[in-house]
């Protein structure tokens, strides 16, 4: 057993490295492994026998024989349930295509690693995940390389499925829903706020959607920030300023409809503080374009959600429990918690120059605004090589000599350099109402993910959500009270290896679980589990619909095939495509060129 265990671990390390830690855990008591009558191990969990107690190997062979029959040629397979791995092994032998295995119960993997023969599974992907949307996310790349969800066949390991019937049924249903709606990428309009902390997050969301292959339009409202400032100075009359501000908000809001309709998007994604009026929401709803709002604010302190939450079809939050109850009372049907994250293309380890290390480096640093609890706690750290970066530190008192750049706003690029250069990045979640650590703090701020993504070492305060996102002291060092900070700084300053180990683990964790790509994928999976079909899929100019109409016109079909990823296409996009093609023009192309020229002629004659 020891040899196969080591082999299995080596295999996992090579193919599914994130599972190593779990695989090495001891088998819990309720997972019972015993020898079968034929000798091979068999497995039972909570009175459910997962394999034959007589001959589990032959059983798996017979089941696999039967299971592969209906699988279409070339389809990839997702096996629902791992068990000790006999069924997976038998399937692997019979399949020429890719295999992934989803197991809902993390307790199964140690048993399979110790008693199975995972090493025989070749390049199979193993996903151990109890949440459906996360499992779908983990399988996304697998499905993509298979050619989309429609090219994936689900095979059930019946006893495993029997244990978690809802989970597996939902997983399969969601994947199937995606095969009809998400295989062709959708159009998303990302609406940014004018300013503030959610502005960069909006841009991270847009980038993530793009990386996921979607067609993204951004409505950048930051261009109106100057106008907003001007309005603040245009009159001393508060009512006039208010009216002008409302007009500006109306302009931005109406632009959403114009842009969403013009670009034929399937979803409007807004960040906290992004403007959208009730009329615009109604208009978008009429056009069957769903809207989603990510409220990346503390609901108890920023209460504007009360005025707007019902306008949106989907309301994402960074806090749960009480907030969701309040939203439900208001009639918000689809609220979901979506944790913040990092963008590894921005927040990343850097090779800094010696000059940069001098400029941005210190033993201890903090990047953030001067909230009450931070002022109070940081005043006790003046004895350290402590650099304080960020704005809103008016009247810094004892902290004056630590405050960098006179309290100027720090750009994202500089922030990443600071995370890289600091020995200890001190992350104290803000509070205007508490001294020290907020005892009720729940959500985790963006900085937590961003520091980890930059492979920076961080000392962060305790948050109730933190333990589900990072392993305390394994992936991030945590203090419970302000009194713990100084001893922990001393501790970690003198232990660079420990700092690096934790930073490395935190970095790996972020890449695995906390990127904006994953969050946006999670959000889309949630949204399109409720939406029948993206609006664009119903659009007559959606490439699939055009292809359907083009039946029997091979020249047209071949042109449209090349534009499959475009979703909804415009005449201009088709003309662009035609210009990029080589060789002689064909009749289909000539017809589009005619359409284009006629439209131009109409525009010249002002007939459009």
């Amino acid at each position: 057993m020891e040899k196969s265990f080591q082999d299995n671990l080596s295999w996992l390390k090579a193919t599914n490295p994130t599972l190593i830690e779990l695989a090495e855990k001891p088998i819990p008591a309720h997972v019972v492994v015993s020898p079968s009558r034929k000798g091979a191990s068999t497995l039972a969990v909570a009175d459910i026998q997962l394999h034959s107690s007589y001959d589990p190997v032959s059983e798996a062979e017979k089941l696999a024989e039967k299971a592969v029959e209906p699988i279409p040629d070339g389809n990839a397979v997702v096996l629902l349930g791992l068990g000790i791995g006999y069924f997976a092994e038998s399937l692997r032998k019979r399949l020429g295509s890719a295999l992934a295995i989803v197991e809902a119960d993390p307790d199964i993997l140690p048993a399979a690693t110790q008693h199975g023969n995972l090493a025989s599974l070749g390049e199979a992907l193993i996903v151990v995940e109890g949440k459906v949307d996360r499992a779908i996310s983990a399988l996304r790349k697998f499905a993509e390389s298979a050619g989309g969800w429609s090219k994936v066949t689900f095979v059930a390991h019946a006893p495993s499925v029997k244990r978690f019937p809802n989970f597996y049924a939902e997983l399969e249903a969601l994947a199937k829903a995606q095969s009809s709606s998400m295989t062709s990428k959708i159009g998303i309009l990302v609406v940014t706020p004018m300013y503030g902390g959610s502005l960069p997050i909006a841009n991270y969301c847009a980038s993530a959607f793009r990386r996921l292959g979607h067609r993204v339009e951004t409505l950048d409202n930051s261009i109106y920030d100057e106008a907003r400032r001007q309005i603040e100075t245009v009159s001393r009359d508060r009512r006039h300023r208010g009216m002008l501000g409302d007009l500006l908000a109306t302009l931005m809001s109406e632009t959403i409809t114009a842009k969403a309709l013009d670009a034929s998007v399937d979803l409007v994604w807004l960040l906290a503080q992004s403007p959208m009026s009730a009329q615009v929401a109604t208009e978008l709803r009429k056009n069957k374009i769903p809207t989603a709002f990510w409220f990346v604010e503390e609901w108890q302190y920023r209460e504007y959600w009360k005025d707007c939450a019902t306008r949106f079809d989907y309301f994402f939050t960074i806090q749960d429990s009480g907030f969701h109850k309040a939203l439900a009372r208001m009639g918000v049907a689809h609220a979901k918690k979506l944790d913040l994250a990092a963008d590894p293309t921005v927040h990343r380890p850097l090779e800094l120059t010696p000059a940069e290390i001098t400029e941005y480096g210190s033993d201890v640093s903090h990047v953030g605004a001067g909230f009450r609890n931070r002022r109070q706690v940081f005043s006790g750290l003046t004895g350290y090589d402590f650099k304080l970066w960020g704005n809103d530190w008016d009247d810094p008192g004892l902290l004056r000599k630590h405050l960098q750049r006179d309290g100027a706003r720090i750009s994202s690029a500089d922030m990443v350099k600071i995370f890289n250069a600091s020995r200890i990045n001190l992350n104290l979640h803000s509070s205007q109402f508490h001294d020290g650590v907020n005892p009720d703090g729940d959500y985790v701020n963006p900085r937590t993910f961003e520091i980890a993504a930059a492979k920076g070492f961080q000392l962060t305060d305790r948050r109730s959500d933190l333990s589900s996102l990072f392993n305390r002291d394994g992936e991030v060092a945590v203090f419970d009270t302000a009194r713990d900070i100084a001893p922990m700084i001393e501790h970690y300053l003198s232990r660079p290896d420990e700092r690096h180990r934790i930073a490395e683990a935190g970095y790996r964790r972020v890449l695995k679980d906390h990127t904006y790509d994953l969050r946006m994928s999670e959000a889309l999976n949630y949204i399109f589990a409720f939406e029948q079909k993206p609006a664009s899929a119903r659009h007559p100019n959606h490439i699939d619909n055009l292809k359907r109409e083009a039946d029997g016109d091979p020249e047209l079909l071949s042109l449209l095939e090349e534009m499959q990823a475009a979703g909804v296409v415009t005449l201009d996009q088709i003309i662009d495509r035609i210009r990029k093609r080589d060789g002689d023009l064909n009749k289909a192309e000539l017809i589009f060129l005619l359409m284009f020229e006629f439209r131009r002629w109409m525009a010249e004659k002002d007939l459009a």
Partner: protein
Amino acid sequence: MPRHLIIQLARFGDLMQTAPLVSAAVGDEVHLLVDSSLESAAGMIDGVTWVHTFDRTAFSKELNQNDVTHAYQRVSALAQALQANNFDKVSNITHTAESAYLTGLAVKSLPRRTDISVCRGMTGGRKGTYSAGNWSRLFRALLCRRELGAFHLVDLHLKLAGLGSPNRGKSWLKATSPASKSDYPLLTIQLGANSPLRMWEPANFAATARIVAEALPGLQIALVGSKDELALATEFERVYGSTVQNFVGKTNLQELAEVIARSSLVLSGDTGTIHLAAALNVPTVGIYLGMARADDTAPYRTGSVIFESRRACYPCAENNRCGHVSCHSDIPPVVVAADVVQLLSGRKVTPQLSDSFQSRIVEFDEDGCLDLMGATVSTQPSRRQTLRKFWLKEFGQFPSDHESENFNHSTRDLAELTGAALSAARRFELALIGGNQIEKARELLKLNLKDIELAANQPDESGLLAHLFQLELEDLPEGPKLIAGKIKLSLENLYRRARLYPPRQSIGILPLRAATR
């Protein structure tokens, strides 16, 4: 019997000017492709076997609504219907990119640039749009140099389509209803035109009509026009003061043709109605104002009288409108009325010339081309006549059967081409009076392609020649690599400068796809 499709997607007046082409297409089974709004009007032309229609109103609606599917299907269905006719010849006389693509789509196999055996005029082929044939190229070169033109539009179209002269002295339209002409002369007046710049004021028409009516007792006056011109008719009636037959806004094109057929004379600006009258062989007197250029679009009928302003700015440049209508008062109603009376009395009129206006009369020269006879008599041919002779000789020496061979330059190199252009320039020089521009043209053509491009921008004949040379290069098929490279570079520069399309990495020797205009 060869099947000949003529593509005419322009307005009613242009369609009426297509009637002489149909008349000249003796021995052809003539099909017309027109805008669907003109289907019945096209059906009036004698000798048309089939009228195909393109519903551009519906098409524009589909494009405005970004309804790619239905717009595509509309054109595709039309192309299939046209292809089913296996046309032996397709002549596009619309000169737009849209019609060019339809020309290419009308035949089963997309044409090559060098092949003009089937398609003539602007054509959409395997490499984009191009001018098929010398005459089409000349037309394009003249588009922005109309003052250098030598041919009436109908004559140019006849040449482009490879047709001889039409049968003159008879109506080119099918017989209208049998209602015979009355005992009294009927003067029909079209008041409106497609632009206020081209429109003589109703008071002028009314003053003319009053003088004519006084001179010819029993004269009947009819007004024709569209619903949009009702106010003009009201103004006419107010100034005229007597009863007229007011058909304004009351006739369709068929009924309008019936009114015109009954008329003894039609008085009008440069409108569809005056070309309808010419097609029906009804005498006309035209008041040509604004952008209307009688040399290009006078009624194509012997004896038609044209009045024009002699103001320096007449005719308005297409893109440089003067913003005033001073030329409208240059033509006195009394002189127009005098000619109308003469014609209605069956007498001849003579051209007139004053400081402010002139009148000219349509006649046809020995080559069958329309010429406007003015009051000045000279033993020397006019500049326009000289140029006409030149082009006829230049292009006429290659009968259509050999034209494709002439334009297949695959074995020529640039020197030969330049040589050909230079020898054309020398012939051009000999043909021109004075000829001082030709020295410049020769010098310019000797230089490289960039200079040819510069030369093409010259506002005189040397520019026209260089422009033609340039068009010839554009239509050059594959040739020696070096030459091709030079041409490509030159054309890319040209297009880049024209900001039409961005330069492309993978174009062939010509702008190919990028050259789609």
